[in-house]
């Protein structure tokens, strides 16, 4: 029954490409969060000093 609902071709959801993209993004967002955390850390230190 679920197949009846897939009126968008499942291929058009392009499974493989989304796996790859999500993988790359996982790494990218991981490093982005680290950069953000480091920036936040220094901001807090310098913020206190000033």
């Amino acid at each position, binding site marked *: 029954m679920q197949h*009846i609902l897939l009126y968008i071709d*499942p291929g058009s959801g392009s499974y493989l490409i989304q*796996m790859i993209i999500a993988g790359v993004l996982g790494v990218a967002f991981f490093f982005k969060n680290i950069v953000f955390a480091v920036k936040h850390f220094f901001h807090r230190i310098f913020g206190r000093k000033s």
Partner: protein
Amino acid sequence: MADTFQQHPSSYRDPSGFIFYKNGILYRQVNQVFKKDFDQFVNNGLYQHLAENKLLIPHKRLEENLTGSPHWYTTLQPELLPFISYPYEWCFDMLKQAALLNLQTAKEAMNFGLMLRDASAYNIQMYKGRMVLIDSLSFELYDETKPWIAYRQFCEHFYAPLALMHYLKQPLQNLFVAYPDGISLNIVSAALPFKSKLNLHSYLHLHLQKTIGKKQDVENKKSRPFSKQRMKNLLQSLQEGIQSFTLRRSATQWSGYYDEANLRGDYVDLKKHIINDWLNKLNFNTVFDAGANEGEFSELVAAKSAYIISTDLDHGAISKLYLKVQQKNISNIYPLIIDLANPSPAIGVNNKERMSFLARCKVDVTLALALIHHLALTNNIPFDNIAEMFSSITRYLLVEFVPENDEKVKLMTLHKKNVLASYSLEYFLSGFKRYFSLLDTKEIGDSGRTLFLMEKLQAW
């Protein structure tokens, strides 16, 4: 009586339901096959959440099978949209807002255990000054192990056209007429400059998807399952990419028009005064402001009417009007890009899926201010044809005539003097009197320009 309904010509793709008219009222049928997903959508609070936050058009539920269909599960009566527009008539910011709305609803749905299952730009409409989702059947039960079924559609309907406009710095909404089901990633990837590959989001969603997406047409059963975190990353990346897109508003054909017009003494004020006077005497509900520019006159009538369709062919002018409508919270102005020398055609299956602009635009009053000379002199359209177009749209017409000795007209005809042979007040009036009767005439101060109030002849 169940057989007297008309299914909407655009509502044929989705087996889970369809929209139809019965006795002039628009309904949506939900089919049995979609019962489980629809019940979840309503019972777990997603519908209420989206409707309350004005992300989705609200509906009333009727437990009556109006079509007599054996597949019927329930009937919905959505709030009626006063006017339907299409992405090829939207400015960049309207499409961008529609894209962000799509992503926001997908994210909200995930929190309720559902997922947005399609991402068509035609499922979004302007309603009360905001972009809202109009398809209540767009949500299915969320399976965390599956990727986003609507991902490619989202890229072709939103990401690709917005990226093209952003990188090429050109308004390209017209591409939707040629590619109504979204712009193919092959075309977009080929047209984009190299620097688009240096942007992570654009590289992944456009260039990489174009390359790999083609190779993998069926779901790979051996692949590892998707996850909720992966889905969140995907949606976050699409959102960041789209938020970074802009179409810089460069000096356009009409920018500064009002500044310039204001230099001509009290021309604009006098015009407003005459129009106000006439409108106060007319009984009307809906207005079409043809060649609205940045909507100064649309704003003038906004308080007096149910809605105003404000069009201009200039993307920059309509962009400014759209931003103004947002900032001032004006809920009844529809700013759209329309070239009256080539209004949006009827397209799609049987040419019935998307109605032409002239078939959708039916109003009581039309303003055609400082417009006719552009159609007649720039586009060489005879007055007869211009009048015929307006007669198919409106009952009353407030039209301005700019004479042949006007500075603007002289400038426009500097290199095409031959068009002036059939351009005069006499030609104008004889053309328009074929379709309209003249109710009043007022000269706009000493500008040499004249306003006419006309009413459509009964014969038309």
